[in-house]
């Protein structure tokens, strides 16, 4: 039997598979559809200080190889989260990582403090790509100093592990990652969605009520995978890969590029059974490869890098 557990940022996950924020609600929505004992952790829907109604619908559009969403962080707000949702999530047989987003470092700090002191909370994910944090031309997620301030504030507010979730949409995501590490993040989640849009040519209107949405799904995989590779060279903290994972091999690509764990989001929508498929597949691969600990895959593509010597026709 292969041990599928993995330790990230001090947390022992039953498997490296986490469920991505915003795609799994607060967890119970998928009760009976997902075997949560095979899930390393769920990341709950990003919670903000006050409840948010979210963006004008339509909020979803399909794209070839992916999808756009413009949910706009609709959530119950901190009070609702603490009084109801967190406890519900905590009853599932998996770890709970609470995703939080504020508009200022102080707001991040209060969220982390309040959520972090609860027993159900195994860790916190800092969502610095909150579309609500409007800044002139340089959004928070593209600004190393802004991100550092958020992480510093969060770090003072809680001892729980901090996962910093980056946006792939920054020319200089490396500086952001390094700033986050220096400020005390325990792990990076690489990465969130890319901004995108679709137009309905019949109605001649954007398909999303908010015009723009975040691109997720397989279309995004090569972009976020490249970031994982690059960032795992620049930072010392573990990386959690995210973006377009829908098969075991996709997850292995992220691990081989340097990720210690990974998150699945969009793929849940085609089938919640993707959890079993990926975890079963990991176990099979490990057996075939004679690996008895999945961390053996982390960064494996950096060790044996001889692309030219692939033989193709045998």
């Amino acid at each position: 039997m292969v041990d599928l557990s993995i330790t990230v940022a001090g947390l022992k996950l039953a498997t490296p598979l986490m469920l991505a924020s915003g795609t799994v609600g607060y967890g119970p929505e998928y009760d009976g559809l997902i075997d949560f004992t095979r899930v390393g952790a769920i990341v709950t829907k990003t919670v903000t200080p006050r409840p948010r109604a979210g963006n004008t619908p339509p909020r979803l559009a399909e794209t070839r190889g992916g999808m756009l969403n413009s949910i706009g962080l609709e959530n119950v707000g901190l009070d609702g989260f603490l009084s109801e949702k967190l406890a519900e999530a905590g009853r599932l047989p998996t770890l709970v990582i609470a995703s939080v987003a504020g508009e200022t470092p102080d707001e991040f700090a209060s969220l982390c403090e309040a959520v972090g002191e609860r027993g159900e909370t195994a860790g916190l994910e800092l969502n610095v790509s909150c579309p609500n944090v409007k800044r002139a031309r340089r959004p928070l997620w593209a600004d190393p100093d802004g991100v550092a301030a958020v992480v510093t504030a969060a770090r003072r507010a809680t001892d729980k592990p901090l996962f910093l979730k980056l946006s792939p949409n920054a020319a200089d995501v490396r500086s952001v990652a390094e700033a986050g590490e220096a400020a005390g993040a325990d792990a990076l989640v690489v990465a969130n969605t890319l901004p995108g849009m679709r137009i309905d040519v019949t109605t001649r209107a954007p398909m999303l009520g908010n015009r723009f949405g975040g691109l997720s799904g397989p279309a995004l995989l090569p972009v976020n995978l490249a970031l994982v590779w690059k960032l795992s060279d620049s930072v010392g903290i573990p990386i959690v890969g995210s973006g377009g994972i829908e098969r075991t091999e996709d997850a292995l690509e992220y691990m081989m590029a340097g990720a210690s764990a990974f998150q699945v989001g969009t793929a849940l929508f085609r089938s919640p059974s993707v959890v079993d498929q990926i975890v079963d597949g990991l176990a099979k691969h490990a057996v075939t490869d004679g690996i008895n600990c999945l961390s053996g895959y982390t960064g494996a593509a950096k060790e044996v890098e001889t692309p030219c010597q692939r033989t193709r026709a045998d």
Partner: protein
Amino acid sequence: MLLTCRLLTQFETVEPGQFVHVDTGPERTFRRPFSVAGVTPAGEVELLIELRGGGTRALAELPVGASLTMMGPLGRGFTLVDARAAGAPSRAAESDPRAAGAAPRAAGAAPRAAVVAGGIGVAGVRLLAQRLFESGVDTSLFVGARTADALLDATLPEPDAVRVATDDGSRGFHGTVCDLFTAESVDLPGNTTVYGCGPRAMLDALAVVAGERGMACELSLEEMMACGVGACRGCVVSTVDGYRTVCKDGPVFNASVLVPEGSAMEVAGG
């Protein structure tokens, strides 16, 4: 297209108006929602599907005997009026506080039903009509479509009883099914419950007519869906209580809670 699906795991119960979420193949990121249009005596699920785009075409091209993955029954269906009771739909009136104001009770006379469907909306009310007939509720059926060819009245339990409308007048009433209902429902008592399924504009118009007549009204809505289980908040519609999900809070809503599409009314915030 009528798709009959034998299930590996039987559904325990299906409320009319509930839907199944069907995987139509790896080319499409999302599953496709379809109303449960019928349940055969053998427990097979019947779907009534209009060809729209890639997903429905893929289903149409499946050979007989092919296997499909679906999740369901999902969502909240219609509240059936009870022929024995006097008054409005029980759940709408009693168990759902949000709907309470919208279900006026007409004491005395047995409750009646009017089912109004536009286009493929017939799929969403077919099981409902069946159940209403089975339980002996006096039910009027109204079905509309663009043209005679597109009319789906024949798929309903008592096709002869259906009153039909076509936009081009090629069969039945010349006009929308809502116009037809407006014209023909003047004699219906106030304790009639109106059930609607079809294009949103038709439903919004229907809600107005039902409201004017003091009739309870339940409408089945459509929205693009991702998760189908209330997790992603992608399929919301505006209600007087803020955004509500079509997949879990709906697809059937009491008309009184819905904010008509395109109206300037603000969302309450959630």
